[in-house]
């Protein structure tokens, strides 16, 4: 039923994007070097952005690239570069029995959840919180729902972020002060 609804080019784009997301995700975990992991993360984010575009959510795709790929991973890279350039992380992972069982349970839980989600209306786009994301209009649709129906959650999230930033500034200031006292 779902395959009938999409055309062949869309299917190709979908498969390629999913492959990019998958390779990025596996590479993120498998890479020896932290910088490579960050680059694989960028790859995954790009794949997700392509999937967003295919769903008609172009604005979300742009925000995905600007905020996550453009700002957050760049900050990751900054921290990695400042903390140690030549350090290669050696993962201390021992595959004992308990861990394997736990990992299996986790994978099973994700699969069950995926099945549940795929059988519901969420994956087919029939129910959307902000109305249908018809192409070309979705910035307006999104803005209208964010600034009318969901204006309180939106403003509260903004306030929360400001509090977090102020908190970070306060904490870093206090640390510097203590260091000077120690000296």
């Amino acid at each position, binding site marked *: 039923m779902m395959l009938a609804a999409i055309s062949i080019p869309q299917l190709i784009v979908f498969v390629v994007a999913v492959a990019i997301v998958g390779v990025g995700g596996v590479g993120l975990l498998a890479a020896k*070097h932290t910088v490579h992991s960050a680059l694989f993360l*960028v790859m995954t984010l790009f794949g997700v952005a392509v999937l967003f575009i295919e769903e008609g959510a172009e604005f979300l795709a*742009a925000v995905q690239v600007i905020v996550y790929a*453009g700002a957050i991973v*760049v900050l990751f*890279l900054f921290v990695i*570069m400042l903390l140690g350039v030549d350090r290669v992380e050696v993962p201390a992972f021992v595959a004992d029995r308990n861990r394997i069982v736990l990992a299996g349970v986790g994978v099973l839980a994700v699969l069950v959840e995926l099945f549940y989600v795929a059988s519901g209306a969420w994956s087919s786009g029939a129910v959307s919180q902000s109305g249908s994301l018809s192409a070309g209009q979705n*910035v307006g649709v999104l803005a209208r729902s964010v600034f009318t129906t969901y204006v309180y959650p939106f403003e509260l999230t903004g306030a929360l972020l400001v509090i977090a930033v102020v908190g970070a500034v306060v904490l870093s200031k206090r640390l510097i002060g203590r260091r000077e006292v120690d000296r």
Partner: protein
Amino acid sequence: MGSDLLLAGHLSLAVVLIVVVKVLVAFVALLVSVLLAIWIERKVISDMQNRIGPNRAGPWGLLQSLADGMKLFFKEDLVPERSDRFVFKLAPYLSVIPAFITFTLVPIGGSVDIFGHHTELQVADPPIGILLLIAMSSISVYGVMLAGWSSGSKYPLLGSVRASAQMISYEAAMGLSIASVVLITGSLSTRDMVTQQLGTFFGFIPHWNLIRLGIIPFVVFIIAITAEVNRPPFDLVEAEQELVGGFHTEYSSIRFALFYLAEYMNTITMSAIMVTMFFGGPDGPDPTFLHWLWPILWFLVKTAIFFVIYVWFRAALPRLRYDQLMDLGWKVLIPVSLAWILVIAAMRVSRPLGFALVLLGFLAALVLTRAISIGHERAGQARIQALPGEEINGDS
């Protein structure tokens, strides 16, 4: 809202071919204009510095950049031993590709009919429009950052950390000035931005965003863009005196040429984006004959003027210090553009409210500067009183 009529409806083979041809033409045109731009830059700077400049290859040295490019092609391609090989080879492309993708957004003329298909003279007009510019400029940070890191050497690393800090800081100011353009256009599409700027005030003043928005967003934008593409006076990234060559110290041959190409592509693209956003794009007087030609001509002339302004910056302004750069970005440009967005939004609601906000802003600024100067005076007096007795501890 920002969609090419060409792509509406069923996609035939002819439509796909037209799109491919548009991409190819834009790419070749950008490459050729880079060659010319390098020549213009060297000639104009030579004139300003009382030198002759390139004059050997071709008439007036026109082929000099071509000769340099071919020389770089045939040079040995070195990869440092301590480098991260894959990332080292990847980084130049991460600089070049965003530069080209940004250029695809620019409308270079009106619309034409090719093979019975009506199409706009612009490679792509996605609904997210100008957001793609912000996305691509944040991706081009990776090119510089990874180039410096993967070289496995300290000067490139310092240069690239500096560069990425600079580019991230100025992205905010750039985004805010773009937001004011979006606010007055009511759309993210670059095509809509251009069509909104057609016409005139009182029959002779062009209806350009430069005037509709007040000059301030444009000034913020040109400064932010200059820092974003690392052009002088914001080229601390490759400050030769302190960093050898900055992030591309270890690069040679064609990879170095790619960085050079990306820099000039970015400069041209940003001139074009500025023309699109603030100077009406292909808008201009339209004589009755050759309707398709005039917009392209006006666009090229405006873009060339901005490119020469960049060259002029390079010849006239000394490089900023790192702390000056950061102060300018965070303490001047971002607050100014934030305040100006408030004013523009208020103007959209009602004129009296907008002017009241401007007045209030001026009053607040006056009070603030007065308070700061009083603070300075008191600090000065305290210092004078403290002087005869003992030495001052710090300047608090």
